[in-house]
């Protein structure tokens, strides 16, 4: 039984990583940049919901919608102001560093506005837990919602990118921006759209993260952001199903190492497994291992 229950815990944790990783990988796949500020957008999203519900007494649904809207706008504005000017810079590390700057900016803005004190997140998702095996195994409502959300978002994103016109434009932009322009694709609009979707997803991720682990500070997004980045790489960065699988696996490995090896070095073990996987499969589980044509 304990194995099953660890597995369940792993999946609950992993689904959180997965939902963050989806946004990460989406932005990476199209805009070809590691958006280090993604985790902080998640934090912003969570603060918006918390403030709307507790201070403005909004209904949870309205608060979530408001949060998605604010994050979407924030994502688009950040891209336009901080990332777009560097799109043609001679090194793509430049924009990585700016993203780090944006991350600091969001954290410190939140610190000024909301203060440093940790706040408990209010229950917004009121889905009852699922009891299995006569109550021996309880799956929390948040977990169920998160997993469902992951699947819906993954399928939705995949369909969107592969089947719709803006999706195809995104693919083209991700490969060759100039050539995409020559096809009539508005590159700026396409990348803005990517950030809009990615940041909207961040708001959802913020909601789910803080519902599962109800604490919130200006730094809440940073560590999950890094973990999700790891998850995305694990699954093959840029791959949408990869992000989901990578996230879940990461969660499961983390819980198993805590359970069977040591909780103090669980992170070390997770990272060691990641390294081994990448050595065997250098572009992640679902990454395309494209050989350069010589």
């Amino acid at each position: 039984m304990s194995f099953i229950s660890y597995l369940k815990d792993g999946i609950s944790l992993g689904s959180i990583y997965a939902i963050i990783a989806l946004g990460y990988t989406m932005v990476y796949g199209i805009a070809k940049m590691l958006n280090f500020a993604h985790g902080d957008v998640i934090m912003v999203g969570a603060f918006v919901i918390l403030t709307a519900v507790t201070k403005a007494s909004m209904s949870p649904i309205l608060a979530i919608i408001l949060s998605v809207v604010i994050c979407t706008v924030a994502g688009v504005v950040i891209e336009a102001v901080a990332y777009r000017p560097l799109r043609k810079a001679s090194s793509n590390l430049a924009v990585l560093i700016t993203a780090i700057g944006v991350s600091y900016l969001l954290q410190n803005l939140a610190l000024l506005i909301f203060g440093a004190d940790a706040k408990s997140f209010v229950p917004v998702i009121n889905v009852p837990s699922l009891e299995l095996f006569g109550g021996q195994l309880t799956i929390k409502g948040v977990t169920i919602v998160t997993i469902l959300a992951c699947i819906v978002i993954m399928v939705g994103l995949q369909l969107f990118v592969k089947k719709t016109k803006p999706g195809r434009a995104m693919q083209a932009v991700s490969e060759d921006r100039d050539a995409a322009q020559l096809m009539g694709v508005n590159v700026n609009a396409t990348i803005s759209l990517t950030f809009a979707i990615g940041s909207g997803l961040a708001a959802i991720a913020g909601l789910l993260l803080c519902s599962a682990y109800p604490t919130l500070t200006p730094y809440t997004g940073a560590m999950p952001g890094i973990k999700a980045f790891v998850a995305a790489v694990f699954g093959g960065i840029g791959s949408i199903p990869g992000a989901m699988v990578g996230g879940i696996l990461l969660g499961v490995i983390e819980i198993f190492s805590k359970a069977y090896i040591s909780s103090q070095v669980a992170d070390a073990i997770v990272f060691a497994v990641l390294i081994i996987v990448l050595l065997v499969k250098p572009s992640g589980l679902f990454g395309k291992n494209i050989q350069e044509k010589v």
Partner: protein
Amino acid sequence: ESEETFKIGVIGPMTGDYAQYGNGVYNAAKIAADEINANGGFNGYQVEILDAGDDQGDPEKAVNAYNDLLDKGMQMLCGTVTSGACIAVGAEAADSTFLFTPSATAVDSITAGDNEFRMCFTDPMQGTKSAEYISEKGLATKVATLYDSMADYNSGVHDAFVAACADYGLEVVADEAYTTDNNTDFSVQLGKIKDSGAELLFLPNYYSDNALILQQAHDLGLDMKIFGVDGMDGILNVENFDKSLAEGVMLLTPFSATGDDEATVKFVKAYGDANNGETPNQFAADTYDVLYAMQAAANDAGITPDMSNEDISAAMSASMLNITLDGLTGEAKWTEDGECDKAPKAYVIKDGVYASME
């Protein structure tokens, strides 16, 4: 005019992961200074709290903040807030600038010089006292721990507690850890603790982590006594925290914001008025006492603002041994090694407030 005031510096994490603790200290220092200025100041001179020196909990930045505050005329230091930073600054301040930390719990924090003092308990002291208390009161014989093994405070208290358990006949049946980078999911650790047959769970962590732990312990149906130390204080004031989760939690701490003695009520009100209704935590209370202890020592030593830092430091250090303080955190006296000799009080959370266990 500046010759007429004492300048006091505060160093602590004002931004970064530990910002809530640094801000608690800084806010309380300002409140205490205002009161002190109204009741005679330090030896008749006004005191001024300089802008807080932010160290983000990093020893290196703490030293930078220390130097900066000296440039700005700091004559005495109320800090630093965290242990690692305090060790680094302590080495710089040794025998030159009077250092009085409200909250750095590691033993080494004040060992570099004779001019360094502490308001709070040390890690070993809290760990040992906790084991002693649990054993004496017969709260449990089998205990479990869950602590942040990457944070110095938590791990210092934990190590002392585990070591003391052997002396007091307590059996540690589950010794679980987490890390600062991985401090949201405790499902596995709590599961193991639940299965270990422990009667009591010792949580030597700060309240923000403990709030999450209590939540998840509740979800897991973990039914055992919870015991914390001074870092637990503040848990009732976490915004939106469901206080019922903390029902029955015991803690050894010198201060509780829900205390009904006059001094506490007055301080809590003053703090709330100055900071959008926030409630002061342990750090704030200790800081408040630091300022009053400084006042007592300053009056005793008869220092004046035109003295050099070294002279102030020497005079204050000598006087520290003469004074006693009846502060928010209890009655205190100081020993030559700078430690504070005061008794922790045991509280239990009942109906959403701290109640004395005595």
